[in-house]
């Protein structure tokens, strides 16, 4: 990597020197009646007037090939649809200079023959594999008086002088401090999908798109191959990791260069890099504000993946983990979630009560977030709650949360130590109301509808029930086939146990009444979701049972394979008896 950085630096520093050498070379060529045209292409001024000398010049070997390449490049170069490619790519060959042995690269097939590489994706339409090589828009130098300083040709790649990004001044980019860094030290912190700005930018400048008959085809992403720390990835992955983009097969590149990171590496252009920065600058600003503004953070979360994305790898991983937890939270009852989050809340409350200043210190610094109770107790069973706190200087301290408490003065240096699992089996007893919703008609329905329609019906029907329960502050414990168990616990903010108990019962009863009101005699049509719904094929129905009493929640399982949260107690029998009684009563 250091080698590449040095090569990149030397390449940049030697840019002018290289141009001088080439200018000298061009001047010497004038003796052979060759000169540069205004666009940097080569033409033989004398050939037009002295056709008889063409054979002499045409017989020249290397220079003629160079001329052909440059002239051919002036026609095809990077154009996707006749226009010049908008991104300019600086080339760094990992060799420290620009005098690269073309044959060695050619022989080692460092050219982008990889089907995933830039050439095959971005330069479709070229015929041969040789022609499919990318030609790179070099960091251009304005041509003055025909003294064009062509960049070296490598791998037969044509380097063009056009393709300057519209609306972007390269001189400004040179002043960009980030651009001055070695590329491997740069980071892209967009950390998300293509934003609207980038999309509009691409559409405007035709960046990274191939078009056929005016319509975008194929991959619309930037199609640079990028080697991250994790390895080879296709496309210009917008990552916050430090990365080195490269073209071609990584194994061949590594063989050719002897580098552990591949030898045929290219810096992404200032333009493309700038364009990404331009595109993601909006989000970057938002991220900075996120720290202070929760509302915008939420907005930003929704804007992207439904969760926040951080600007660093750690933040990204934390955001991903939080999102995963939220996703798993959709599959487990709230009481299970509470059993894990409760210790944190308890710690916070305890700290607030015992040492208000300490809590402020913790919440403002790395305190409460870095301390996790070791013994996670369901539902705030406070008998065994404890906390491990690692003090950087004093080692691990075990602090009993509900002991005296006041003797604990948390240190700013306290850090997370351990996160032990809930002891299994673990039980918790509490009073609560239990609702049992039994849906009928699915068995018959499954024989009448195709799978897709059936899933739509089930989804829509269950959605009504689930929303009703959650709106009534119920906690869905389990889906057992086409039945649902939900509970309302007597826990709450109120100190009055009776009132909490009454609220739980009332909520459960209201929820059940709402469910039977909205979900009874639910017609199912043949063509659900279509304008003409067709004939009614079946009717779904529901009946409910409500019970109240002492419940026991039990966590069973192990710490590796599987766990289950079970509910035991008299209310289970009550609701079942209710449904059975209902059936008998109905008959």
């Amino acid at each position, binding site marked *: 990597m250091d080698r590449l950085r040095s090569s990149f630096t030397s390449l940049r520093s030697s840019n002018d020197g290289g141009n001088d050498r080439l200018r000298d070379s061009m001047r010497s060529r004038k003796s052979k009646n060759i000169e540069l045209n205004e666009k940097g292409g080569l033409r033989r001024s004398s050939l037009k007037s002295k056709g008889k000398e063409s054979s002499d010049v045409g017989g020249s070997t290397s220079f003629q090939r160079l001329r052909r390449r440059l002239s051919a490049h002036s026609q095809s170069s990077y154009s996707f649809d006749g226009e010049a490619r908008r991104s300019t790519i600086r080339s760094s060959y990992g060799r420290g200079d620009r005098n690269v042995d073309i044959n060695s690269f050619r022989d080692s097939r460092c050219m982008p023959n990889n089907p995933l590489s830039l050439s095959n994706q971005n330069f479709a339409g070229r015929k041969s594999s040789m022609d499919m090589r990318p030609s790179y828009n070099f960091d251009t130098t304005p041509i003055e008086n025909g003294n064009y300083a062509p960049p070296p040709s490598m791998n037969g790649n044509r380097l063009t002088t056009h393709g300057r990004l519209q609306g972007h001044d390269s001189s400004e980019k040179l002043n960009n401090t980030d651009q001055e860094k070695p590329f491997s030290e740069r980071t892209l912190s967009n950390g998300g999908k293509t934003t609207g700005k980038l999309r509009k930018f691409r559409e405007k400048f035709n960046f990274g798109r191939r078009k056929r008959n005016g319509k975008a085809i194929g991959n619309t992403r930037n199609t640079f191959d990028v080697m991250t720390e994790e390895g080879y990835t296709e496309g210009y992955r917008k990552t916050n990791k430090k990365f080195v983009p490269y073209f071609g097969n990584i194994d061949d590149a590594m063989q050719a260069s002897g580098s552990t990171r591949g030898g045929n590496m290219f810096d992404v252009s200032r333009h493309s890099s700038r364009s990404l920065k331009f595109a993601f600058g909006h989000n970057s600003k938002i991220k900075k504000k996120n720290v202070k503004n929760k509302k915008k953070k939420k907005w930003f979360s929704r804007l992207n993946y439904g969760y926040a994305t951080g600007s660093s790898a750690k933040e990204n991983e934390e955001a991903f983990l939080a999102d995963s937890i939220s996703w798993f939270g959709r599959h487990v009852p709230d009481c299970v979630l509470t059993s894990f989050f409760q210790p944190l809340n308890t710690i916070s409350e305890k700290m607030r009560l015992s040492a208000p200043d300490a809590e402020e210190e913790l919440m403002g610094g790395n305190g409460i977030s870095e301390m996790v109770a070791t013994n996670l107790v369901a539902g705030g069973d406070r008998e065994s709650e404890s906390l491990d706190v690692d003090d950087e200087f004093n080692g691990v301290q075990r602090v009993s949360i509900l002991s005296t408490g006041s003797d604990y003065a948390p240190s700013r240096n306290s850090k997370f130590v351990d996160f032990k699992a809930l002891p299994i089996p673990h039980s918790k007893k509490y009073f609560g109301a239990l609702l049992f919703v039994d849906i009928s008609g699915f068995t018959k329905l499954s024989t009448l509808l195709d799978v897709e329609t059936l899933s739509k019906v089930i989804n829509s029907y269950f959605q009504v029930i689930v929303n009703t329960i959650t709106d009534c502050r119920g906690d869905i414990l389990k889906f057992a086939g086409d039945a649902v168990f939900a509970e309302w616990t007597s826990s709450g903010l109120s100190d009055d146990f009776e009132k909490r108990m009454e609220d739980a019962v009332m909520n459960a009863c209201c929820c059940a009444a709402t469910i039977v009101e909205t979900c009874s005699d639910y017609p199912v049509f043949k063509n659900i979701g279509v304008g003409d719904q067709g004939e009614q094929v079946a009717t779904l129905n529901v*009946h409910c049972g409500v019970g109240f009493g002492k419940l026991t929640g039990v966590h069973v399982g192990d710490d590796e394979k599987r766990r289950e949260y079970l509910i035991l107690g008299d209310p289970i029998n009550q609701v079942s008896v209710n449904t059975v009684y209902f059936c008998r009563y109905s008959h």
Partner: protein
Amino acid sequence: MKVARAESAADHGEVMASPEVISILEEICQLDKSLQDIGVDEPGLIASRKISHFRRGLERQASDLSFSTVGSERYFERIQERCEGLPLESLKKLRNLLSLYVHPVTRNDEMHASHHPTSRRTTEERHRAEAELRTVYVIFVNVEVEVDPDSNEKGAFDKLNDVLNLTTSVLDEHKGHLRQFIVDDKGMYPL
């Protein structure tokens, strides 16, 4: 059997409440006469389709209105908010613990997902991935274990734990996984 019995019932759309529930309802709201006349140990019909046999007081109704403002999406947003500020290691372990309660297919999908920003899945994509049509073979096991939930003995729930662990290990041997572990009035059913 429960579903079959319910299906065979003539009428649906009714809510039955246990005697315990009715006794509490009697204290906090006004009940219809039909509910007042039932026996002490009998469950009662408290709602039938659009008819409610219990009436909530004005105070209760006002407080109930606030419930509808608690949306499910808001609930899941709060889960993420609760994760804010937790250290990375804690988040990892918390995720591992929660994943143990989730269906194995969902767990594997999520645990093996890349956290790379470009590889992340949205909630919709996750739902879509789960909603696959697959052919399965189901074993429905009735485990006859007597567990007294009111027992205060330390090892009262060890039997339940042993049943689950044994079932899981046997299923692992045969490349199966536990779909659900149901305990109700009829017994214990690993599925």
